[in-house]
């Protein structure tokens, strides 16, 4: 095994001994010095997860979070120097992490926090002015073909847990009092100008937005969705600058 391969294995797996061939000028045990690099690697990766998943950490406590993150770091170390994307598999990992099974919504909260990070760094796009959208909606001839492109930061999450309510409660006093854990929620995440916003929307609205994202024209997207309030959903998308392009075959 090469030096760096041996180093890498021992940095990630704290059970492995310090690599061979190391020394220190004062004759100290190299292991006592290798532990500095090992601590740096472990703590920087755990801290990176801690920064991206603050609500997950609140839900399980700092000590549990760091122990859980340490297992994840060893199993799924970063595969890229772009640390903003690290933790892509964290939510799935949590869903299989037996010691966290007493917090069954933890994995979905992690997914929501990951979507917030993705939305934060997503590509920029200018919204269409509301007057322009209103004009397009008021053109009966063009309406049947009208389609919307949505902001690159817009992401959806379907959860069997009240994931938005749990997340939102932890932006304030961190209590789940008053949240009915028996109802799932559909989360809409997007970046409005510089701020990432999170909404709970109806199942039908969530399907409708997915249909739009799949490229269906507005009317088809609405028809192919369970019952929902179309006006309110369009109002939400317009008010939060989520519509970035109008596709209209009549007036390209």
């Amino acid at each position, binding site marked *: 095994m090469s030096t760096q391969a041996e180093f890498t294995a021992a940095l990630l797996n704290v059970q492995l001994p310090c690599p061979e061939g190391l020394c220190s000028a004062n004759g100290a045990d190299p292991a*006592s010095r290798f532990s500095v690099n090992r601590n740096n690697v472990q703590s920087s990766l755990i801290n990176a997860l801690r920064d991206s998943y603050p609500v997950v950490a609140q839900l399980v406590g700092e000590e549990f979070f760091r122990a859980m993150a340490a297992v994840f770091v060893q199993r799924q170390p970063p*595969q890229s*120097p*772009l640390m903003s994307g690290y933790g892509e598999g964290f939510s799935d990992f949590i869903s299989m992490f037996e010691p966290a099974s007493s917090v069954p919504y933890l994995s979905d909260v992690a997914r929501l926090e990951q979507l917030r990070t993705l939305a934060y*760094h997503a590509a*920029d796009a200018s919204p269409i002015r509301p007057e322009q959208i209103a004009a397009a909606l008021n053109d009966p001839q063009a309406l049947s073909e009208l389609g919307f492109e949505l902001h690159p930061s817009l992401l959806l999450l379907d959860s069997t847990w009240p994931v938005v309510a749990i997340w939102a409660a932890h932006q304030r006093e961190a209590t789940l009092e008053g949240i009915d854990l028996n109802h799932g929620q559909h989360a809409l995440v997007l970046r409005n100008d510089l701020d990432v916003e999170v909404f709970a929307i109806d199942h039908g609205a969530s399907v409708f937005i997915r249909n739009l994202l799949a490229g269906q024209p507005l009317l088809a997207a609405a028809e192919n969705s369970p019952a929902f309030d179309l006006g309110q959903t369009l109002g939400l998308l317009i008010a939060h600058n989520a519509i970035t392009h109008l596709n209209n075959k009549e007036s390209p």
Partner: protein
Amino acid sequence: MFTSPEPALSCTQAAHAGLPPRVGVGLKTGHFREVLGSLPDIGFFEVHAENYMVAGGPFHHFLGLIRELYPLSLHGVGLSIGAEGPLDVQHLQRLKDLIERYQPHSFSEHLAWSSHGPVFLNDLLPLAYDAPTLNRVCAHIDQVQNALKRPMLLENPATYLAFQRSTIDEADFIAEVIRRTGCGLLLDVNNVYVSCINHQRDPMAYLDALPLHDVGEIHLAGFAEDSDNLGDRLLIDDHGAPIDQAVWSLYRNVLERIGPVATLIERDNQVPAFNVLLAEAQQAEALLVDAGGRS
């Protein structure tokens, strides 16, 4: 030799002249709004390149605004120049794109490795100083400078360990890399002090062995105190504390040798309020002025 690319922006030519001989501060996301609101008298800002390798959003928004007002140093932490394997050409392309976008006055990276195969370790790891490592590091720096079409600065490392197979002193190794590749030196004075304490070297002798006339930037930072199994001082380069008196003293010595050079106040952990960093910057700026800096 490096041929200058066609000027893409009005700041291109200024950017190629290097950083101004003033004090800069590491730009932290928590300070974006305060910097734009107060427009502090700072010589330049430095950012970690990898943080800005994202598609869009607030990071680019704020860096774009700040770049219009201040010189910029782009500091890489993920290229893994010392890696046994080949450089990540995709990452090199991302650096090239970022340099084209922001036209930084300086690009720097570390004498260290941080990736092995696909695994990124998010730490700057030590190298054995021998002929094969020297050849590899020089080949990687040649590749970087050719790809980016500009010289880079190489930062001296903070290390805790040595390799039995090392045959070259660290400072001599760095001097030879600079001689062969034509890159510049990012002299991290904190790293000089940390490594010299950890490896029982004399900091003055270490500085004597470096090609100080090739210094394009200086880094100043704080360290943490630890001890090894013999109870000897083991200093950790954690960028999480104010600059130590011993490092200030070494910095003054460097300025006496080479005159004023762009100097960064670096703080990545336990980041304090911006005015705390500004106070350290003013302390360093006074030393630069003493050393014959801007009138």
